[in-house]
């Protein structure tokens, strides 16, 4: 009898712990023909503001050793067009949809969240207070404990949906931000967003990205992300959704053992959009081999003595 892969993020029950990370899976529909969206634990769609955003001029990405730096600039169609144009397809595909909520002000976060709360088929909200690569990317909220508490509390009042603030790794003590989010009523936290980074073209002496700086993601950051997830899981009672460089089932298992209840996969989906069933099979095989009957049994099951 195959192991139970279901996990709970607050009141949100996921059929498995594999979630597509925001900004790395478009609006989900782009991948419908290569991945059965209903087979994923959840899909976090691209960050959405109240209105459309154009994003930064290209070049928007640059590759780095075992990673990539991006400054897309949150190009997006805005919450209204998303609800009208994308949600019908996502519902039809049976996707569990989590929206990555952005805002340039607390009011905007609240407004976007309120709008989404009344939309059928939206399973949760991930609060993006950690996008490093635009001025209003939320990192001004995510790098200050008081503002983190303030924006999470404000959105909390505006929605009943499972609320998952997404934390930035660009801080001294990520666990205190996890606690601030918990105190403010978050149902879970997710981390890590990208690391603020920069690449210079030495021949032109110009930054590789039009935006000068961007966010580092991919396998390169995994060891730091695992450490941060471990710290946060030991600091809060609410579930932790871990991510950062996951590219194999072993990588996903590292995060689960470190204390993540579920994991997100971003950059690796660019490299291999067919990765999802392989990740799921790898986790299942591991649970069988180690005689676990539920994936939840290995959450935080790291042995440290």
């Amino acid at each position, binding site marked *: 009898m195959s192991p139970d892969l279901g996990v709970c993020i607050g009141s949100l029950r996921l059929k498995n712990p594999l979630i597509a990370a925001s900004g790395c899976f478009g609006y989900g529909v782009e991948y419908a023909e290569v991945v059965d969206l209903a087979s994923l634990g959840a899909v976090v769609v691209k960050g959405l503001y109240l209105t459309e955003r154009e994003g930064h001029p290209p070049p928007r990405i640059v590759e780095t050793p075992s990673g990539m730096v991006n400054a897309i600039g949150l190009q997006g169609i805005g919450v209204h067009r998303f609800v009208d144009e994308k949600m019908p397809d996502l519902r039809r595909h049976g996707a569990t949809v989590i929206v990555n909520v952005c805002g340039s002000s607390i009011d905007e976060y609240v407004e976007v969240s309120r709008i989404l709360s009344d939309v059928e088929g939206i399973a949760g909200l991930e609060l993006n207070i950690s996008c490093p690569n635009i001025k209003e990317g939320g990192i001004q909220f995510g790098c200050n404990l008081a503002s983190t508490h303030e924006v999470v509390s404000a959105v909390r009042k505006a929605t009943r949906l499972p609320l998952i603030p997404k934390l930035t790794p660009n801080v001294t003590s990520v666990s205190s931000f996890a606690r601030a989010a918990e105190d403010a009523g978050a149902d879970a936290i997710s981390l890590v967003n990208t690391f603020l980074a920069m690449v210079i073209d030495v021949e032109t002496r110009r930054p590789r990205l039009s935006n000068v700086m961007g966010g580092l993601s991919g396998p390169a950051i995994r060891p730091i992300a695992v450490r941060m997830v471990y710290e946060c899981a030991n600091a809060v009672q609410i579930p932790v959704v871990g991510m950062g460089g996951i590219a194999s089932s072993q990588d996903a298992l590292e995060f689960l053992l470190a204390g993540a209840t579920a994991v997100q996969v971003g950059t690796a989906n660019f490299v291999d959009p*067919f990765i999802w069933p392989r990740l799921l099979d790898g986790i299942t095989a591991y649970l069988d081999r180690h005689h676990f009957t539920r994936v939840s049994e290995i959450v935080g099951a790291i042995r440290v003595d």
Partner: protein
Amino acid sequence: MPAPVDASARVLANTRLSADYNVVAFDAPELAAVTQPGQFVMIRTAAGTDPLLRRPFSVFEVVRDGTGAPAGFSILSKRVGPGTARLYDASAGDRFSCLGPLGRPFSLLSPASEAWMIAGGVGLAPFVLLADALRARDVGVTLFYGGRRSEDLLYLDWFASRRVSLVLATEDGSRGTAGLVTAPLEAALSSAGSGRDVMLYACGPEPMLKTVASLAQRFDRRVELSVERMMGCGMGGCYSCVVRVLDEDGRARYVRSCLAGPVMDGKVIVWE
């Protein structure tokens, strides 16, 4: 459009044409069977995570078996960095994971029209398939083909054998007219009577594409450009590959060239 597949494709042959050009043929029947001219594949060039991202390549040829059935495809690669270096060094039997076919293909013509293909350097890549498809429909095809030196002009015999008229240009004047290929193109456009329905297809360096687009404007010809942007995923997931275009109501916005392209209507592109 059929859904893309990810083929773990064996290298059938790697033919080095020069110090930096090579043609790699891959064993990938499924993928080859459904590829249309102008589409591309995303190739993973390393087993590990460095380089991490796949590299986009136009499908160059469809390789056929004895019976004429599609057995695989080839790419024409120019070595410019680590990923193309690995492809240059590939040996028969090596496996590369190839994701595709991807992107919007060239639109084809009826014999009433004629096709002028403009290629700069490795921008030749998509035109073997396009020429084949157009010749199969008895469309008259001319290839305007520019390179740095005459050694950079590849597959000329192949095009000649398909009765594709060739107009060549080299920057060092060693073959064809000296200078950029857009010069003979301009001359041809100005002398071509408005009675002839000429469609332009171009692939190559951005400055060349810009010039072709403006010439198309000036001489009021239809034009399709295969644009090249950094591509993180090739599937519409990352928004890295954007091109600025004018939408229906004349507003400039960024569209993903892996979905709206790589082949795009030259008239709507806003050059940055």
